[in-house]
Every structure is written in structure tokens, then in C-alpha cells.
């Protein structure tokens, strides 16, 4: 029953000409923050976060969507990236390194963490892997929470603040830029910086997907035994998926720390892992466009709820019965269940040529 729905063709109106589609998407990506700015600064902030989540979702999609390894501790890599930035560019240790050292270091540490997690779990099947990765995420969080004694490393639950902002070639992105009399908001600067990262990530991942590595991942995902039989080094490929996926998490985490100026263990709870997972489940596992759409939808969701659900409840019942945070969790969990039952391949399914069709594995 899953195969029929994953092969569902998109309605004709969506599948307009690629030559029109691409410039339109690029234009939208460039103009989006300006439109958001007209609606209020908080919406630009949402877009900035959306891009960070897109980066995360792209990374998790490498692991879950491409290689078929369900990772429930993905947020740990985000945390590694964020804390690396916080350690090396904040008054906490009094170290202030520039971003072109800190960001690659964060990515490298995250990749190492990915390998550290991947190595012992290589032999595990899907559901066990999910639980072990979940445990890994929790262990990282427990350490972040408690490593403030006997030596203060992470500053415990209070977190680390006044983290250095992203400064590119002397341009401090946390300050509004004064360009020929025009004030360019810091939020816009961050948006375009993040957008550049996302575009780079998209190009990289699209190349990766059609490369030998990407095809090897698809083979492993669809049938690991068969993949091994045709000579794919499944160990190496799975490790690579973990490491590369983690790298994206690390970069995103570093950018998050710089953007937010503050990190604490609270930002890296299991719930966050689940949110990122829901993004790719909702959008369409294995399909880059779907994943991006999912990430943007779910980042905007809490804001939309705050703006529309609260007034609506006020109008209907005279009070807010469900606050936006609860409503968001409710919708997220329902989305996961309903998507799996009704449209397991997501809103924008991956191409059927690569679709997940291992019914034998059930």
C-alpha cells in the first residue's frame, strides 16, 4: 500500500516547466526576507531560523533519506557545532577565533562525533539504531548539563552567552549595516549568509546524490545485503553518511550559536531531533526539495500558530485553550502519524526510480 501512494503523481499545476521553476525559486529565495521585513522584523528572524533548519534537515536527510539509517540523536551534532563555536569564540574561555577557523573546526568535531557514533552502531538494524542514536543524543545532553563541575567546561544548564557573532571580512553581521545611507538590518545580513551556506549545501548534496556514493547509499537503503553482494563497502558508506550528515549538523550548530549569541543544553533536546525528523518525513524523505519545503513549513508553523491560532481561539472560546507551543507539538506528532499512514513518501515524494520499495524487508 505504501508503493501506490509514493508513486502518486503531483497535480499538474505543481509540475510546471523547470525553466520557469528554477528562476522563480531563486527569485523567491532572494526576495523572501524583503517581503518578510515588510511584515515585521520577527518574520525575518523566522526565515533565518528556517534556513538553519533547512541545513539541518538536508544533513539528516543524507543519513535517513539517502542511506536509510534512522538517526534520532541528530541534534547532538548540532550541539557539538554550537558548543565548539561557543568555546572558541566567546568570553567563556576568553578565546576569540575567527569564523573561518571555528566553523570548520565545529564541522570537523561533529564529523568525528558522527564517526564515533557510527562506528559501534554499524551492525545494528534500523530500529535498534534509532534507539542507540537517541541514547547518544541524550548522553551528549547530560554531559552538557553537568560538565560545569568539578571543572567548568559547559557552564551547565545556564549555558554560555555573549558568543561572538559571525564576522566576515571585518563585517559584523550582528550590527545593522549602513550602506550609502540605507540601513540594512542585521537579520537580512544573516539571511543572505545562511542562504549562501544552504545553496552551497544543496549543490553539494545534489552532486553527491547522483555520484557513486549517493547511489551506493540508495542501494544500502533499499537492500543492504544486495548492496554488499554487488561489492559496495557498506561499512565505509554508512560511516560516510554519518560523518557527512553530522558535518551539516555541526556547521548549522556553529551558525546557530553565532546568530543566537547564546547556547544552552535546552536547545538540544530530543524534541529538536524529532522536529528535524518530522521536517523530512513531512516533506519527503530522500527528496531535497521536499526536505527544504518541510523544514520551512515547520519552522514557520509556531509563528503562524502564534499569529493566527491564538486570536482564533480568543474569538471562538474567549480564551486560549491551547497555547501555540502545545498546539505545535500536537500538530507535529499528528503529522508524523498521519503522513506514515496516508502518504509515507511525504508531500513531495522522492523520484520513484529511487523510491523506497523494500517490501521484502517488512
Amino acid at each position: 500500500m505504501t508503493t501506490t501512494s509514493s508513486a502518486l503523481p503531483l497535480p499538474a499545476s505543481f509540475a510546471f516547466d523547470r525553466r520557469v521553476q528554477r528562476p522563480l525559486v531563486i527569485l523567491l529565495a532572494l526576495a523572501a526576507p524583503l517581503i518578510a521585513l515588510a511584515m515585521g522584523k520577527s518574520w525575518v528572524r523566522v526565515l533565518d531560523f528556517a534556513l538553519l533548519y533547512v541545513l539541518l534537515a538536508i544533513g539528516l536527510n543524507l543519513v535517513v533519506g539517502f542511506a536509510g539509517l534512522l538517526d534520532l540523536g541528530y541534534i547532538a551534532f548540532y550541539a557539538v557545532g554550537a558548543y565548539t563555536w561557543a568555546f572558541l569564540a566567546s568570553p567563556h574561555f576568553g578565546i576569540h577565533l575567527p569564523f573561518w577557523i571555528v566553523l570548520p573546526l565545529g564541522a570537523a568535531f561533529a564529523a568525528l562525533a558522527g564517526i564515533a557514533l557510527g562506528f559501534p552502531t554499524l551492525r545494528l538494524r534500523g530500529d535498534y539504531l534509532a534507539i542507540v542514536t537517541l541514547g547518544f543524543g541524550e548522553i551528549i545532553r547530560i554531559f552538557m548539563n553537568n560538565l560545569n563541575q568539578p571543572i567548568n567546561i559547559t557552564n551547565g544548564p545556564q549555558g554560555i552567552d555573549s558568543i561572538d557573532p559571525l564576522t566576515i571580512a571585518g563585517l559584523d553581521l550582528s550590527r545593522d549595516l549602513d550602506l550609502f545611507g540605507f540601513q540594512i538590518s542585521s537579520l537580512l545580513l544573516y539571511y543572505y549568509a545562511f542562504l549562501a551556506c544552504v545553496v552551497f549545501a544543496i549543490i553539494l548534496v545534489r552532486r553527491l546524490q547522483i555520484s557513486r556514493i549517493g547511489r551506493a547509499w540508495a542501494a544500502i537503503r533499499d537492500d543492504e545485503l544486495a548492496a554488499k553482494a554487488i561489492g559496495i563497502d557498506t561499512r565505509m558508506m554508512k560511516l560516510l553518511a554519518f560523518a557527512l550528515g553530522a558535518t551539516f549538523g555541526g556547521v548549522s550548530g556553529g551558525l546557530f550559536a553565532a546568530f543566537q549569541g547564546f547556547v544552552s543544553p535546552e536547545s538540544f533536546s530530543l524534541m529538536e531531533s524529532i522536529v528535524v525528523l518530522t521536517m523530512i518525513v513531512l516533506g519527503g524523505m530522500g527528496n531535497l526539495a521536499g526536505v527544504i519545503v518541510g523544514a520551512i513549513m515547520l519552522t514557520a508553523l509556531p509563528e503562524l500558530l502564534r499569529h493566527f491560532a491564538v486570536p482564533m481561539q480568543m474569538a471562538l472560546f474567549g480564551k486560549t485553550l491551547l497555547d501555540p507551543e502545545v498546539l505545535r507539538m500536537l500538530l507535529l506528532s499528528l503529522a508524523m502519524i498521519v503522513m506514515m499512514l496516508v502518504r509515507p513518501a511525504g508531500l513531495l515524494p522522492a523520484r520513484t526510480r529511487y523510491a523506497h520499495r523494500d517490501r521484502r524487508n517488512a
Partner: protein
Amino acid sequence: METFLQQTLNGLVSGSIYALVALGYTMVYGILGLINFAHGELVMIGALVALQTVTLLNAAVPGLHPVILLLAGVAVAVPVCMAVGYLIERIGYRRLRNAPRLAPLITAIGVSFLLQTLAMIIWGREFHVFPQLVSTTPMQPMDGVVVSPLQIFTIVVAFALMGGLMLLVNKSRLGRAMRATAENHRVAGLMGINANGVIAATFIIGSGLAALAGVLFASNYAIAHYAMGFTPGLKAFTAAVLGGIGNLPGAMVGGLVLGLVESFGAGYIEHLTFGFLNSSYQDIFAFMILGAVLIFRPSGLLGERVADRA
């Protein structure tokens, strides 16, 4: 020596609760090959429903004997959890039985968070004090060792339930049907067993045990909370894997061993790491055990090497 005995006792108490929850995981896994991620939430629902019942009953009829309150709480919590467990299987998992492996797992995570959110809506985010219905007055059978009637009660109830379950599975008609379905549910169907009914029964029994475990857990920690099911759920899963998932005695042994390891670990970790780590790291033992078991002995302590169900 006193510390040793004391930690053993504490370990047995939490271990027997883990074992009860682990049985639910292992029964479902044995039959469906599915990790019912939402099982831990049933512990939470059991505790909170019992708490609600006790509070309401106490308000309606003040001065009832605590034992009656406890029985009433259990009498409501168990059927409620059974119903929830049944609904999870019927709505969430049944349609996905032949789907790719990731699908039911993601559904299970969704169900788990859905239940948590619903509980948060009903009971709020705050911690609720769970009344002490069984005395916690400490007794001192020997120097330096403290035991409360509640702790003894917990161990006795848990072992009685485990014994009952073993009898059910090994001696009754339903138990035989369950074992047959676990072996191969298509063939079991050909033998005239209603496989769907048996699977539903498995979920119902597991959920009932989870409800009882929830009441015991909340009694021992004197607290109930919408997110309280998550950690014991995870630990019980670890216990099930440790004992050999799909194996009932394994789940019990695994639960007890995990309880003991955690208790000793929390007691001695400061000495072992020269004060670097303290007992706030208690929760990482379960994950470390889980990792170690899965890497070095995936079939668990008592599990025989079953054919790869992947």
C-alpha cells in the same frame, strides 16, 4: 557492606519496575518485530489516571482507607491503559504491518509524542505529588540498611505479576496462540488462530502491565508528570534488549540487572571516576549498557540467536 545491601535493595525496586515495562516491549517485539516506542507513555498514563482517580475519589468520599484508594486507582488506570494500547495498535500499527521498516517506527515516535502532548493538555506541565498509599515509614532490618513497606510491596507485586504473565503465556490457550503467532503469524492464521486478535491481546496485556508499573513508579518517586514515561520507557527497552528482546524471562532478568547496575553505578561512580562524575550521570548507564549489549551480544543475555527478522 551496608551500602552494598542498600544499593542492592534500591536496585531491586527500580529493577522490578523496569522489568514490568520491559515485558510489554518484549511481548510486542516477539510478535510483531516492532519496537513500540510509545510503550513508555503508557506508564505515564497509568500513573496520571490513577492519580486522578485517587484525587477525585478522595474528594468525593473523604477518609477512605489508602488501600481502597490504591485499588480504585489501579482499577481505573489499567483498563484505560489497555484501551489506549489497543487503540495504538488498531489505528497506528495494524495498517503498517507490511510497510517498510522505518514507517511503523516513525509512527511509534509520533504516537509517543502525541500521548505526551495530550497528557500535557489534560494534566498540565507541572509535577503532581503522588500520594503515599502504601506506608513509606522506613524500617531497619539491620544496621545501615533502610527498607520501607512500599519497597517490599513493589517487589512483591512486580514478581507476582511476572509470575502470572509466565503462567498465562506458557499454560493458557491464549498464551499458546501468542507463541504460535510470534513464530509466524501467517501460519498461525492457517491453524485457526485469529492473529489480529492475538496481537491486540498482546498490546492489551502489555499496556495493563505498563499501567501497574506506572502506579508503582509514581508511588516510589512520589511524583507524576506528563513526561515521566520517557526515561523509564527507554530504560525498560534497554532492559528488554539486555535480556534478549522477544524473550520473557530475559526481560525480567534484564530489568533487574539494569536496576542493580544503575543503583551501584550511581552509588560508586564518584569513587570510580575520582569525583569527576557524580550521581547526576545515573541515566547514562542505561544507554552505555544498551550500546555495549547491542555491539557485543546483540541477542542479549538469555536470547538465542533468532533468525534476522530485518
